């Protein structure tokens, strides 16, 4: 009779494993973290965008995945693997990949973001647009029918 009660109890305790413990501990350590902020080229934050961090030795499988906050921010602490870490942020098919170089001493160098219109001033944008428009106008003028000129 006793064994029919005790045996299941022992089995249950063994299966319960760590959950049988009542105490819990949290270890805190200070890490060197990397923070990014993802924005569209309109300046709007990419809120709730999906983030995938790729370690230098495995560019196929993400080392970490997560989501940006309402301001488009995401913070992670890479381990000490040196090399080029890639951080991809995407939302509804839009997104970008930035790279972070971590040296052999474990120190991260500057984050290399891809060139987008977000880093351009309005003057630069206007000049670039004007140059393209002028190129198109020049092309149109070059290929315009020359009948009128011949008649003149």
């Amino acid at each position, binding site marked *: 009779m006793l064994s029919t009660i005790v045996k299941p109890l022992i089995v249950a305790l063994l299966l319960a494993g760590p959950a049988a413990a009542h105490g819990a501990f949290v270890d805190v350590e200070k890490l060197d973290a990397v923070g990014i902020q993802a924005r*569209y*080229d*309109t300046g*709007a934050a990419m809120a*709730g965008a*999906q983030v*995938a961090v790729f370690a230098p030795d495995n560019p196929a*499988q*993400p080392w970490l*995945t997560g*989501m940006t906050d309402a301001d488009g921010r995401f913070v992670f602490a890479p381990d000490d693997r040196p090399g080029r870490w890639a951080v*991809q942020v*995407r*939302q*509804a*098919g*839009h*997104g*970008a*990949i930035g790279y972070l170089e971590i040296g052999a001493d474990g120190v991260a160098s500057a984050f290399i973001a*891809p*060139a*987008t*219109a977000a880093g*351009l001033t309005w003057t630069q*944008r206007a000049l*670039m*647009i004007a140059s*393209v*428009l002028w190129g*198109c*106008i020049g*092309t*149109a*003028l070059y*290929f*315009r*029918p020359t009948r009128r000129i011949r008649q003149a």
Partner: protein
Amino acid sequence: MHVPDGILPLGMTLGGWAVAAGLTAVCLNRIAAQPDPREGLPRASMMTAAFFAASLIHIPVPPSSVHLILSGLMGAMLGWYAVPAILIGLALQAVMFGHGGLTTLGVNGVILGLPALGAFALTRGLGHVTHPVAAALVSFATGAGAVALAVTLFAMVLLAGLPAHLDAGAERAAIMALALAHLPLACAEGLIVAAVLGFLRRTNPEMIGAR
């Protein structure tokens, strides 16, 4: 609504290039078969400029913003010239402003080129409609339908190329929200095409009916 670099798997980007190359070859053949292929180049060049600049005009559609696409107008105005013009415009946007990407140029060319050819077919097929209201409705459908088709292709490509590590549910919801945000744009582009073609019908009818 340009797919940037690094979003799609390699196979899809290569496939996009292959389809875009095929589309371009067909269009160039059709252009070469015309009596004077150079005749359409000035118009194609000016429309490329409009296409290039249009993508930089953002229209706020809360909570996000969309930009003009003009595939329908390109197809209605340029016909077979539309696909090469769109590819050139996309390449310039990718190189100068980082809109889209060079690896995804083929995919983006297909996403915007096919609706342009659809608009061309609709404009040519219903070119005999002369009643002003009916013609305006056809033009509206051309512009709006091209945006709807482009958004549909965009969503299909993205959904087909979702990587395994991504939260598929969240990405599907984001794509759906983006597609819905393009509904007002479809109406706006329908109105643009109706206004432009309506104006040309009154002032310069031979400019319509791209060949």
